[in-house]
């Protein structure tokens, strides 16, 4: 538990450092970003392994594959987003739940694969049952946000079943911005011009969305 708390604290700290490093004169430093992301990854692995030990009899985890070290801020934001609460095995919450309070959810990410699409369908049908036309556009937005949240998590395994990201209790604003940005980004054309301006080299914000992970990358980078 101590280990988990410490790992979580370090992840939170790293997100803040990532955030503040963007404000520094001279712009984002690649080396520093890489180092922060390495610490984030170690903290996340530590947190996960501590969680595994805690939940061992209940949950079977997919193997935590060695992640490609991601130097971008979103790696940190991802991990922070997913680490808030210890409870697993909850169905992915409504995006609105995420906004209100950090609820126990995300560790379902590490459970057996959840059919995200299926759950989306269920939700949409429940919403349409309400019969409120006004809900339809917002329903779509929420679904997109939810999808983005799901994408906003860890590694390779998550590419298949992206678990929802959870708003870190300490960063409600971060979560809201991420959610806003995601919907905007999903509307972006995936076919970004190949000859990206040099700006793209330092900030991947311009690059096309290859996967849900990249969506989060771009969200936080833009943020």
């Amino acid at each position: 538990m101590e280990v988990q708390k410490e790992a979580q604290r370090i992840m939170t700290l790293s997100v803040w450092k990532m955030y503040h490093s963007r404000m520094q004169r001279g712009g984002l430093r690649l080396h520093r970003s890489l180092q922060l992301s390495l610490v984030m990854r170690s903290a996340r692995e530590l947190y996960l392994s501590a969680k595994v030990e805690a939940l061992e009899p209940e949950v079977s985890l997919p193997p935590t594959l060695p992640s490609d070290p991601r130097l971008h801020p979103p790696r940190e934001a991802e991990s922070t987003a997913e680490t808030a609460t210890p409870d697993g095995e909850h169905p992915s919450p409504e995006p609105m739940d995420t906004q209100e309070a950090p609820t126990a959810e995300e560790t379902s990410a590490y459970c057996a694969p959840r059919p995200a699409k299926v759950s989306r369908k269920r939700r949409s049908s429940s919403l349409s049952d309400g019969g409120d036309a006004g809900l339809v556009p917002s329903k779509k937005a929420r679904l997109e946000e939810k999808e983005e949240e799901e994408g906003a998590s860890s590694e390779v395994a998550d590419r298949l079943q992206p678990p929802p990201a959870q708003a870190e209790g300490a960063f409600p604003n971060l979560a809201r911005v991420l959610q806003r940005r995601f919907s905007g980004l999903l509307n972006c054309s995936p076919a970004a011009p190949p000859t990206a301006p040099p700006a793209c080299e330092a900030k991947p914000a311009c690059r096309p969305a290859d996967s849900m992970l990249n969506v989060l990358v771009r969200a936080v980078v833009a943020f």
Partner: protein
Amino acid sequence: MAGAGGGGCPAGSNDFQWCFSQVKGAIDEDVAEADIISTVEFNYSGDLLATGDKGGRVVIFQREQENKSRPHSRGEYNVYSTFQSHEPEFDYLKSLEIEEKINKIRWLPQQNAAHFLLSTNDKTIKLWKISERDKRAEGYNLKDEDGRLRDPFRITALRVPILKPMDLMVEASPRRIFANAHTYHINSISVNSDHETYLSADDLRINLWHLEITDRSFNIVDIKPANMEELTEVITAAEFHPHQCNVFVYSSSKGTIRLCDMRSSALCDRHSKFFEEPEDPSSRSFFSEIISSISDVKFSHSGRYMMTRDYLSVKVWDLNMESRPVETHQVHEYLRSKLCSLYENDCIFDKFECCWNGSDSAIMTGSYNNFFRMFDRDTRRDVTLEASRESSKPRASLKPRKVCTGGKRKKDEISVDSLDFNKKILHTAWHPADNVIAVAATNNLYIFQDKIN
């Protein structure tokens, strides 16, 4: 005067006795960020000492000729020239400010009366010419002594201007500007032994320049992956071999060093030698990866060895052995248990430099609390010294300092928790021939000399 510290001393002893010589810079407690020294470098003869600061200024000190009436007092360093090398710029395309901070200064070997140096910030390298002017022409025909143009109709006679002595004026002028070649932040420059080319390295690329050509550079190393999300390491430092003009090394954030030979291919992405020490599993910790990042790499003067600095140690490598370093010196091992706090206060990201003495028998590097460490390679002795105003009396000997790591603190020892992590010595330089060292402590430059016995 003793050469490399061994001359006048008892046979076999290489002990230095360092004494305070000078300190440059303001004494104010409130240090302006622009005054923080960011690089220190002696020139090839050691007569000139250049410093660069965060405000983009370069200050050059010149050693005074030795005073014959005081043979034991070596020449002092006095200000020779000050100029603004780099200004803050704005990259409109990326909406980024480019800092004017001088990252590195490297001197060119002197070929005529003028001195040349390269200075670089994050994006642009400049070649500066520093020249003396001690004569001026007087008696112009077309203008008055105060420079006003004379009315041509008033000129009734012609005279030949004559040169008259004047007060020495040292002028610095930018002769070349090497710009727009680096997407990432430049961390190193290194002049080649051919005296015609030099390299500049940023996080992902190394470029080769010719000193005369500013609109073109050759890319010789490129470690940028096709997909940036697969990036695992960056280049942290690079240097040319002191004698072999085709060889250079670059260090990485993963603690590895690659030696490349430019004769083997145009793009040196494949190394000729790869230096890496296997990680000791017992010392593996949460922050292992980031403290193994190499912050500086320096060839020995002989060219046989190279030295690398990571967060906690200095390692000396024999170029003929890639598997492990031949020496490892712990700089401040007592910080290993404090890495978490050092991560919180950002100190873990500090990039310390290291340097060799002229004979390669000793190495020096900085630490916290204005401490700096010296390691004698022959006697295996090391010493911790402090650059402080308190011990700044002329020719006062520096007392060795000791950090208490636990248990009972002895008198004169300082405990780890009392160390001031805001007082860090990142930049040091050693005179190429004599035992004179320059230590940059935030905004102050300390000069220490070895006492001649």
